[in-house]
């Protein structure tokens, strides 16, 4: 397929939208919110050309429930939004989880809480990995760090959603949304209709029973069985799709953990630390944060002297890192918030401090 890809120079928002189309999405429901408006605009332009449906919902609440309806009817469907809008979608998302409906959400995270601002942030980490509405359900969460990955991950999210009958969230931020980079586009093609024997719609009653999409289970044991089934899927997903990337020294003294745009900044910092400071540093970059790449982080934690987490929040992702490290090495945090982004120099300085404290670097 790669030789058929066309290389273009586009924004993260556009790459996301085109990724949705490449992943087979033909139904999009959304509500405008900065910084992701280019996605619904792109879908409004493109979907009608290929027999799809774009619909601007009256609210994010309605949008996620339209997604719920479309997914019930067996469609590959997506919505995109940004932090406050994703917060509004939480109940509907919980229904999607409870009714075991595959669908794809993209969150171009912005500053918060409250109305916050439209600057880049990673402060919806808990919302994505712990939230997704009330109850015992989790969103499979993918964390791209480039325009190319926004495209590829969004396209791939549909298959993952189908495989586990679970919503998948692509978690990015305002920088990735607006920045432009080269991107090799997956060619559009008509994918075979997904096999969804559970979907509602016209049918021959001699061929199947009534299909009911539902998340109401009044009997405790039945409800618990649903939760156990979901949990088993998450365990399976952890085995099958946990993904991460590593970059830098093979014999690191310092491990950096970062995802998304923070990992981009850390890549530059790792190069500087290794080449200019002589502090052997390695970046572990989760591409999925639920399921979380616990094993590689734990295994490097055994071998390094210090770990540094860089994220655009006051400390959310760092908790998962600490759970993975389990005290094997000290874990420091460089957290910025409110739309602010650490510079490469900030990260390098933190690497130096961490190395000093661990006694592996001289002043």
């Amino acid at each position, binding site marked *: 397929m790669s030789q058929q890809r066309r290389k273009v120079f586009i924004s993260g928002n556009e790459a996301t939208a085109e990724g949705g189309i490449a992943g087979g999405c033909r139904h999009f429901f959304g509500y405008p919110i900065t910084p992701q408006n280019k996605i619904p605009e792109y879908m409004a332009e493109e979907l009608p050309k290929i027999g799809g449906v774009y619909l601007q919902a009256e609210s994010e609440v*309605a949008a996620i429930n339209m997604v*719920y*309806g479309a997914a019930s009817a067996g*469609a590959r469907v997506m919505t995109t939004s940004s932090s406050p809008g994703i917060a509004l979608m939480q109940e*509907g998302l919980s229904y999607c989880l409870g009714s075991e409906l595959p669908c794809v959400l993209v969150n171009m995270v912005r500053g918060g809480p409250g109305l916050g601002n439209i600057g880049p942030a990673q402060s919806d980490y808990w919302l994505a990995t712990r939230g997704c509405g009330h109850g015992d359900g989790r969103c499979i969460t993918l964390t791209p760090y480039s325009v190319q990955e926004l495209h590829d991950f969004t396209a791939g999210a549909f298959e993952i959603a189908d495989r586990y009958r679970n919503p998948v969230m692509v978690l990015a931020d305002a920088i990735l949304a607006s920045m432009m980079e080269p991107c090799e586009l997956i060619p559009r093609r008509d994918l075979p209709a997904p096999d969804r024997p559970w979907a*509602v719609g016209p049918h021959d009653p001699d061929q199947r029973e009534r299909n*009911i999409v539902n*998340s*109401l289970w009044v009997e405790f044991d039945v409800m618990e069985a649903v939760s156990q089934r979901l949990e088993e899927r998450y365990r399976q997903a952890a085995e099958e799709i946990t993904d991460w990337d590593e970059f830098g020294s093979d014999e690191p003294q310092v491990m950096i953990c970062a995802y998304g745009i923070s990992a981009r900044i850390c890549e530059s910092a790792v190069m500087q630390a290794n080449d200019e400071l002589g502090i052997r540093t390695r970046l572990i970059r989760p591409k999925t944060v639920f399921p979380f790449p616990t094993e590689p982080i734990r295994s490097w934690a055994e071998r390094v002297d210090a770990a540094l987490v860089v994220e655009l929040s006051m400390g959310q992702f760092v908790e998962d890192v600490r759970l993975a490290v389990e005290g094997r090495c000290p874990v420091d945090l460089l957290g910025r918030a409110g739309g602010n982004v650490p510079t490469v120099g900030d990260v390098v300085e933190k690497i130096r401090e961490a190395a000093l404290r661990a006694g592996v670097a001289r002043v």
Partner: protein
Amino acid sequence: MAEAKLINPYPKGLTEVEMRYCPGCTHGTAHRLVAEVLEELDIIDRTVAIATVGCSVYAYEYFNTDAVQAAHGRGPAVATGIKRVQPETVVFSYQGDGDLASIGMAEVVHAAARSENITIIFINNAVFGMTQGQMAPTTLLGQKTTTSPQGRTVEAAGYPIRICEMLATLPGASFLAREALTTPARIRSSKRSIRRAFETQLAGAGFALVELLSICPTWWRMDPLEAIRHVEEKMIDYYPLEVFRDRLAEEDEGGDTNA
């Protein structure tokens, strides 16, 4: 000996699951009317029912169709999602007054504004039943509920909402009627409107809603006959029974569509 003939058989549009409604409740009547219409129009196998949150939350067990259970108030949005994926599917959302007129007001108004090609059965019994008798947006002035124990006042809670009249301001609403499930004649009239609401969808004519004035003997704290009298004497006064819009008929007559 003459052969007995069953003139009113159990409708195919209903399952045989025993309904959980209270004695005297008119949900059962409304379900049956919808089920009969689905059967008469021969659309049971291509209909998706949407059960919402309220006493009718189990509607997916009662209607003999495919079904989706929706979050509180979101029936019209869920119906929209299904209909936009499967235009050939008949989609109806069955909602109470708390679901539709309170938490779900935005969804029903915008579905009507878009003239979404769906049908809505709106049960107005002026009270929250499932949560045990609280005030609804359609609770009449003076009506006592568990959250308006002295009776609803304008000062505390404003005025009851007339959904049909409000939606009639929207050109996208193609069929709007208010009926009452009280007397045999009114129940027959209700069925005509329900049928019309589905015919409107089948004709691709757009948004259709039937409001059914219903009784809640349990939370009105009345016996069923008293409750029926309450509808006849009080509710119809505030909620007049009327076909507010029938675009199919207007088109037949070639007349003004009000749009």
